[in-house]
Every structure is written in C-alpha cells, then in structure tokens.
C-alpha cells in the first residue's frame, strides 16, 4: 500500500494538450474515483500513473518515490482495464500467476496466492480454463484476480465494469467495494458511470477538458458542486439550470421569479441550479420552500416508486420528481415550489459557484 501524488501533471499529444496542470493526492488506502465524460483524459492520467504513457510535465510519486522514469514493472502497481486483456494462450491460473512467476516467487507461495485470490473471487472452478472459455463477468473476475495476487502498492482500474450488462455490473460493483474493505488497498478507479462514482469511492475527482473540476467526498461534491459543469455531471437525473439574474435577495428569469433566502449579497447575471428532487408540485407553503411558481405539466413518467414530471414555466423546461401517488396529468397547471437550501447559484461568466 502506498499513497499516490500527482503534482502539476501535463500531457500533450502531438501539440494537442490533453491534461493541463493536474494535481491530486490519493492517501494510503484511499479509494479515489476519477470521473468525467468520455475523452476528458481519465485513461491518459491513469496510464501515466502506470507508466504506460510518457509524462509531458509534472511529477508522479508512489509512496513518496518519484516514478516518472520508472518502467511499469518497477512501479508495483496492478491494472484492470475495460477489455480485460487476459493472455489468450494461458489458462486462468497461468494468467493470474504470470506476474509472480516473472518475479520468481517460490512455487508454493504462488499456488497459495492464486488459491486465495480465486477463493475471494469465487473462480476456483475456472482455474484450468482458457479465457476463451469464460463469460464476460468471469473474465473480469480473472482480471481482478490477476491484480490481487500481485499484492501491489496501488490498484488502477480503468472502467472495469463498462463491458458488463447492468445486472453483472451491479454485482461486481458491490464486490469491488467489498474487496477494498478487505484489502484496504489504495485504489485509483476511472469511470464515467454516475452510480459507480457516487457509491464506490471514499473521494472522487470530477474531470473535464483536461482539468480536475472538483475533488472531494461524493456527498460533498453532490451537495456543493464547485461549478456549473460538476453540478450538471454529478447526479441523476440531471440538475435543472435556469439562466437569469439575482438581485435584492431574489431570482428572476424571463419565465419565473421567486425569493431566495439569505443570499442578499449575490447580485448580477447567474445560472440557477436545482435538482429534480428540489422541485415540488404538491407542497403546501412551508419553511424552507419558495413561494409558488405556476407551471404546466408536459409529460408524466411513472418509475415505480416515483414519477418524473416534465414541466414548463413560460419557455423554461424543468424536470421535477413527485411521489408515485401524484395524480396530475399532462396539460394540468400546477404550483411548483423550490427547496431553498437545494438551490445553487453559478456565475454566468465564470460558471463558478457563488
């Protein structure tokens, strides 16, 4: 186990900047999630930690040691990637023991570690098979097993679950969480999946455009997004955004206006963000909620335990969430209220949280 420190990492591909001045500290034993849209440089960053990609500028330390010029084999890391990358000409057992055999560990030690990992991942019965004879989920288990037996200082995961179907993904997600609890290992985990990002990590870093937009505990990033991008990226369904202006402790847009509490200091052009759960259509006046704003229901979706309501106030479209028992129909006019402490204001220019 070791910490990972990224200091001012920059990556340029053929004069095309991909990562720009990334700094991030992953503590020993921490489960750190890197999340962001496709193409934002997550894999590139992870591969730089692994030593598979040159570092254009900056410094990477693993356990305090600068590893910039160390080849992957000397970094004591293990990596699990999206396409599994199992060696096709080796059995499962040979795949798992490959790294240990390279390091010339004693035979009985190798056998012990492979057995142990196979036990944890419940793949004992597969040890004699080749990768071709495995299902996708089994292959992913083997890939994880191959990482575990090495007892690396750091585990790197690059979207390990994205090739699995929804049910398997859920299963493996829980397994990976358990694995982290039992191994206590340092993990850097790349994903673009909301649920993995929110549930797996002890901390998450949201990336976009080659920058880390925000790093923090999942709950903190969710409840206090640092900017417009993070607010829109984290959370599902997505946050509603209403462009408008703040003045004199209130919010105004061409389509709606209401009083904000305790934000008299903010004024000027803003984007207001409110999550679907923060809009209510059947709430009586009450502490912590805004005055009513009229809106028309466009579409109602029943999701079992709740309903998605697609609303329109003037030209402004909004998504709200209501109980399954809510009886409104498309075309009905409703009074919506905003939960005041769930309202986020972002500067219209800088997109930063106000």
């Amino acid at each position, binding site marked *: 186990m070791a910490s990972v420190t990224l200091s001012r990492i920059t990556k340029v591909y053929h004069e095309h900047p991909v990562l720009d001045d990334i700094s991030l500290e992953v503590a020993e034993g921490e489960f750190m999630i890197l999340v962001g849209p496709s193409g934002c440089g997550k894999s590139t960053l992870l591969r730089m930690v692994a030593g598979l990609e040159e570092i254009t500028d900056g410094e990477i330390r693993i356990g305090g040691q600068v590893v910039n010029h160390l080849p992957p084999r000397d970094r004591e890391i293990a990596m699990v990637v999206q396409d599994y*990358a199992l060696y096709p000409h080796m059995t499962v057992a040979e795949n798992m023991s490959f790294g240990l055999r390279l390091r010339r560990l004693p035979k009985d030690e190798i056998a012990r570690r492979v057995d142990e990992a196979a036990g944890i991942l419940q793949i004992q019965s597969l040890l004699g098979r080749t990768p071709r004879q495995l299902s996708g989920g089994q292959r992913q288990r083997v890939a994880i097993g191959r990482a575990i037996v090495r007892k690396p200082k750091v585990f790197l995961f690059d979207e390990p679950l994205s090739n699995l179907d929804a049910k398997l993904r859920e299963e493996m997600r829980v397994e990976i969480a358990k694995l982290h609890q039992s191994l206590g290992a340092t993990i850097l985990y790349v994903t673009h999946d909301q649920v993995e990002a929110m549930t797996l990590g002890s901390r998450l870093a949201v990336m976009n455009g080659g920058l880390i937009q925000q790093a923090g505990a999942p709950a903190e990033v969710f409840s206090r997004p640092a900017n417009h991008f993070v607010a829109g990226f984290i959370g599902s369904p997505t946050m509603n955004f209403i462009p408008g202006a703040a003045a004199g402790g209130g919010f105004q847009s061409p389509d709606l206006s209401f009083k904000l509490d305790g934000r008299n200091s903010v004024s000027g052009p803003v984007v207001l963000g409110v999550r679907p759960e923060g809009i209510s259509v059947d709430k009586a006046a009450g502490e912590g909620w805004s005055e009513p704003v009229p809106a028309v229901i466009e579409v109602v979706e029943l999701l079992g335990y709740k309903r998605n309501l697609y609303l329109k106030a003037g030209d402004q479209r909004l998504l709200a969430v209501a109980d399954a028992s809510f009886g409104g129909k498309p075309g009905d006019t409703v009074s919506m209220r905003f939960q005041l402490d769930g309202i986020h204001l972002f500067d219209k220019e800088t997109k930063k949280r106000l």
Partner: protein
Amino acid sequence: MAERARAKNVLLHAALVAACIVSVYPMLRMIAVSLRPGDRLLSTDLSLIPAGASLAAYGRVLAETNFLLWLWNSLVITTVTSFIGVSLAATAGYAFSRFRFPGSKLGLTLLLGTQMIPAGMLLLPLFLMIMRLGLVNTYLGMIVAYSVTSLPFSIWILKGYYDTIPRSLEEAALVDGTTRFGAFYRIVLPLSTPALSIAFLFNFTQAWNEYLVARVVLCDASKYTWTLGLFELQGQFLTQWGMFAAGSFLVTIPVLLLFLYSSKWLVSGLTLGGVKG
C-alpha cells in the same frame, strides 16, 4: 433461391476440382516417369503406374550420384536460412507494427517495392555483394542471400498479424512485470504462431527450390544444392529422365513433411477471448 445456390455450389466445386487436377497432374507425371523401366523413358504412355514399373531409377540416383550430399547441403542451407529469416522478420515486423519512427512508412513501402523487381535483375548486384563480403562458394553466402530475399514478404506477413493483436495484452504484461522485449517474447510471439509458421514455410520453400543464386554463388561441386545437382544430370547428349524424375520426387518429401507438421501451428484463433468480444 435454393436451386441457384446449388448451381453455384456445383460450379464452384467443378472449378476447384479442375484447379486441383491442373496442379496435381505434373506431380503425377513425374512419379510415373520415375517408375518407368529404362527402355521406355520417352514413351508417351499416360498410365500412372507404367507397365513393368521399377524403382531402379531411385536406386541409381542414390547410388551413382551425390544426391544425398546435395540433399544434405540444401537441408543445412534452407534450415538455417529459415530460422534466421524468420527471426529477423519477427523482430522487424514487430518494430513496424508497434513503433512510429522516422521512415517507418517509407521502409514498409520500400520493402514492398523490392518484391516488384524480378529476381533475375537482382542477381548481379547480389553476387557482387556476396563477393565483396568474401562469401562466394560458402554456405554462409547462400544463407545471407536467401534469408534477405525472403525478408520483405515475411516482414509484411508478421507485421500484418501483429497489428491484429491488441496492444492492451502487452501493456498488461508490462504492468505484470515484463520488459518491452519480454512482452514481445512471452505474449506476442506465442500468439503469432500461425504467421510465424507461414513465414517459415515461405522461407523454406523459397530457399529449397532456388536455382539461380546457387548457380552463381556455389562453384565447388561438393557444396551443390540438389537444384544444382539434379541439373548436372542433364547430360550433353542424353538426359537421365528417370533419375531426374526420381530425384525430383525425393526432394519434395522434406517439404511435404514440413507442411504436414506445421499445419497444427497454422490453426488461428488463439487471440480470441483474451480481450473483450
């Protein structure tokens, strides 16, 4: 629909059978000639096993000529050539497949270009090179000449095959603890046996059947390959057709065995299942 598919099938098979006959016929004629008794070498008899068939020609080619020595010379030169040729092509093809370096594209194109030049035109420059290297009339000279002339084809075959092997396998190996060469040696090479076998067979058959280069490089009769040796049988006044045919049949045997042996390596599909999909 089914009718048309059937007609197509029949036509296809007829064409294949015809092609087989055309390619097998000369071989059968050769066997037939080798079995004829001495007095009927020039007969126009078409039967595969001629009347009064005898193995006398085989006995004579083995006993009265240096056939076994020629065979041995060919075998040594061809085997060493094939191993050297494949080793060079395996590493060069890997570089062309995996690394971008100045001239990598141009290099590949030039290699292909060499294949467009008729072998005869290369004979003189090749001979001059071998002479300057002081390798005239040596096995080594032959081996150098043969292994480099087969290189372009072998490199292309191997480069093309490596291109189909996902890089993520080598990256996994690097992370697992191999060096760059280790990843090539332990992962890429074992997965490339089909292409390696094809390159080996190509090198082997090219060198085995070669005549022109051998003619100019080798002058000492004790170093003759079978191609040179058999042509010796073409006498000034009388060609020993029976012995010639018998020798020709015997030299196909090693190639035949090699093809049979390597067929198990030609089976592809090993890379399936290592990575997704």
